[in-house]
């Protein structure tokens, strides 16, 4: 049955692209929040199977704040998170040529923009599958 995804990203053009990819797959219902505050509110009011999260938003790398906040919230700790970020080119000058370092973002998966549609769908499906498996026998 359709899986419900939430996407928190401030770039409407990018969101439109991702949404069209996921809609084309036909088994995902995608809600969108364009800033961290609306994103967290959406997470409190509805249950989602997967979160697509951007990093550079609002005041700065707020995606990191959200990812950490999820991990502390008992209800949302299990939620699988796929970070999709363009941080490398956005502030590339800061750490030229260095990888994005997910260590402090206990997240399930990280993908860098631009995103290749097939890879995206694969990652989304696998993440949901593993999360379901974890729920069945934690």
């Amino acid at each position, binding site marked *: 049955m359709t899986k419900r995804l939430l996407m928190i990203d401030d770039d409407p053009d990018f969101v439109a692209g991702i949404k069209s990819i996921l809609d084309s797959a036909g088994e995902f219902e995608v809600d969108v929040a364009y800033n961290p505050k609306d994103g967290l509110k959406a997470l409190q009011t509805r249950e989602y199977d997967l979160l697509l999260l951007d990093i550079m938003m609002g005041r*700065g*790398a*707020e995606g990191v*704040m959200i990812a950490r906040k999820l991990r502390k919230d008992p209800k949302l700790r299990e939620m699988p998170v796929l970070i999709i970020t363009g941080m490398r080119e956005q*502030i590339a000058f800061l750490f030229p040529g260095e990888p994005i370092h997910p260590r402090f973002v206990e997240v399930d998966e990280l993908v860098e923009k631009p995103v290749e549609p097939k890879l995206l769908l694969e990652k989304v499906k696998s993440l949901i599958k593993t999360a379901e498996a974890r729920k069945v026998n934690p």
Partner: protein
Amino acid sequence: MKEYAYYPGCSLEKMAVSYHLSAVETTGKLGIKLKELEDWSCCGATAYSGIDELLSHTLSARNLAIAEKTGLDFVAPCSACYKNMYFTAVHMRKDADLAEHINFALEEDNLHFSGNVTVRHLIEVYVNEVGLEEIKSKVTRPLEGVRVAPYYGCQIMRPRKDHEDVEQPQFFEELLAAIGAMPINYPLKMRCCGGSLIISSRTAALSMVRNLLQSAVDGQADVIATTCPMCQVNLECYQQQVNQEFGTNFSVPVLYFTQLIGLAFGITPKKLGMGKEFVALAPSLLAAGKANPAHSKP
């Protein structure tokens, strides 16, 4: 012997070393010990908020956390540092998520900032903490007849709106009067000196500096007193460029208010870092007599 967690800021290392010297000297005379913050780092000035505001808050929070360890009030001589520190503290007290996230980052340097640090600008220490009476009592050579333009700059009062007079404060004038000087009516005293625009948009900043100098000269000021190293550099070191750009010939000395206080306390100019100015103070003013005011016809 009241102590303060003293945060000099990057420019007081070299560019504005005389501000540092005169601050230490004059506070020493007033029974105040400026204990320099151990291993402090840059506050991010204005550049950071244009890249990542969380990082800007983190830089300030690191210094605030170090100050919190000492348990002393935080003192910043530079207005830009003062504003960054003050508002990082305000935001972290108000927004729990922000505080939690930044403290998570500070853990790497085993630091923590819980918010109970009072952030003061250096001039507040003189005016509010020490008080004008105490300063007046320490004055040995009042700057008789020296006409001083009290230049507040912009970030010392703003964007705070909780002072009782944001637009026309008087405490700088009162401080100058306390040391015997003659504060002039300086209408542009709250206007900006251009700050980092001196680099990113030269002509704009040079014209702002020109207006400030013009207004000081119109008020027949012998010297402009500043409270921030960036304003001092813009007003003094770029007088040459202003003269070339607009065909004026300003040569107005620009000193830190602590240097003027030092002179009034009779401290030897050398110890106040005098002699590093581009526009030398008229020797007579050094002897606090009023010889030839530094006038100029535009």
